[in-house]
């Protein structure tokens, strides 16, 4: 049983096996994302009650918190794939890391944008140098750095490995950055109101948030699989299986 499982895992580590698998899985996750988002939004807007303290504006958290979670989690997964790529020297893992980065940056920006729009009526300013917002901003810079580095290197092998080292160095630094920013923030401003520590969250609010988080998971998986398919085709263009794939695509068209 175990040997069969290992066999299948390694089987799909090869780009030519992974490409059709990704093509089959991505639409499933996309459908799951749409369904979950619809359920989550319905619960968020029509079931969850008005917040006693913040009024209706709190409904931003149904995207703000999942986006913030996703942006951090995606960086972690990116570093994980990079580590796998460095240790096992697999081509696919670097492609996965590069496919994840733009979506992570997107979620990072969404978290910042919604945080600013939530902050204006709540704090009275679009931006305050709050520990969470500030570390989110630095995380966005880390994503930009990773994307800029991999884009600047023309040789794909070098881009893969340089990106992997940068992602790992960044992952070591993320906790340090978060710790330092929190430290700096408490010294300079004292504790501020935090979005995720909203007093007395109703259970329906929590459920809506969790379902939206699952929706962003499904969305991330779908879009990353689609992106990695493009990367695989480009990288493997000299191989037989890509030629067969192209012929099949032509026949379909």
């Amino acid at each position, binding site marked *: 049983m175990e040997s069969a499982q290992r066999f299948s895992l390694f089987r799909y580590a090869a780009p030519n096996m992974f490409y059709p698998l990704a093509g089959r899985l991505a639409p499933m996750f996309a459908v799951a994302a749409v369904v979950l988002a619809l359920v989550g939004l319905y619960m968020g807007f029509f079931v969850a009650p008005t917040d006693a303290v913040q009024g209706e504006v709190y409904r931003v958290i149904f995207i703000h918190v999942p986006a913030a979670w996703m942006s951090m989690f995606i960086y972690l997964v990116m570093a994980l794939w990079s580590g796998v790529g*460095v240790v096992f020297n697999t081509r696919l893992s670097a492609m996965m890391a590069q496919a994840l980065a733009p979506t992570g940056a997107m979620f990072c920006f969404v978290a910042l944008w919604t945080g600013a729009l939530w902050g204006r009526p709540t704090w009275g300013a679009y931006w305050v140098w709050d520990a969470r917002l500030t570390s989110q901003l*630095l995380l966005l*810079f*880390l994503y*930009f*750095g990773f994307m*800029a*580095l991999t884009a*600047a*290197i023309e040789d794909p092998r*070098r881009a893969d*490995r*340089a990106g992997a*080292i*940068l992602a*790992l*160095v*960044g992952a*070591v*630094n993320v906790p*340090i*950055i978060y*710790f*330092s*920013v929190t*430290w*700096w923030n408490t*010294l300079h401003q004292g504790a501020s109101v935090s979005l995720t520590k909203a007093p007395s969250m109703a259970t329906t609010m929590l459920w809506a948030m969790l379902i939206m988080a699952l929706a962003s998971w499904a969305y991330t998986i779908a879009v990353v699989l689609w992106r990695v398919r493009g990367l695989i085709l480009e990288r493997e263009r000299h191989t037989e299986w890509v030629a067969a794939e192209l012929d099949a695509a032509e026949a379909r068209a």
Partner: protein
Amino acid sequence: MLSVFLEVLRRDLLLAWRNRADVLVTLAFFTIVACLFPFGVGSESNQLRAIAPGVLWVAALLATLLSLHRIFAQDHSDGVLEQLLLSPEPAVLWALAKILAHWLTTALPLILAAPALALLFDMEQSATAVLILSLALGTPILSLLGAVGAALTLGLRGGGMLLALLVLPLFVPILIFGAGAVDAHLSGTGAAAHLLLLGGGSLGALALAPWACTAALRIAVE
């Protein structure tokens, strides 16, 4: 083994001495950036005293950033780097020697010049001492982390800007604890915690950064 370390260190210091104008330019840059701030925010001395630690730290950060490409660029273009990587000597050792040489030729002059700049901002003497200490403990991290960034961007088009984008977010904690040490000293809470964190950070970077740096160099040279 130690002889590689000493030999590379000696060679880099000698090269730096021959190109000592570069070192002076870095120092001049540090001074000028720091001197720009009074023109921007006004010369009110209470305000200047309040921003001085942050300004001097940011200036030191930028000066270090601009000098980072010097660690490997020349050795990369004349092929010395390749020879060093091919040699049987442990790469971590000579990479560390090069980083140390960079620290001695950029950070050390900045630390020595900082008291004079502190005078321009009317900083208290005890605060100046804490600033010097924080610079001494924090700048090794700048050199170590910066060397990883320099190795990753070696030989790339637009490498300078890219290097800034890669390393500046990583420098934020050092800035926070470095400038924070002086603030904490002035506010009476004591700078010990900040300085200990900077020292710990230096040791951590010393243990990890040379490995990442040599890995990045191997990738860049292949």
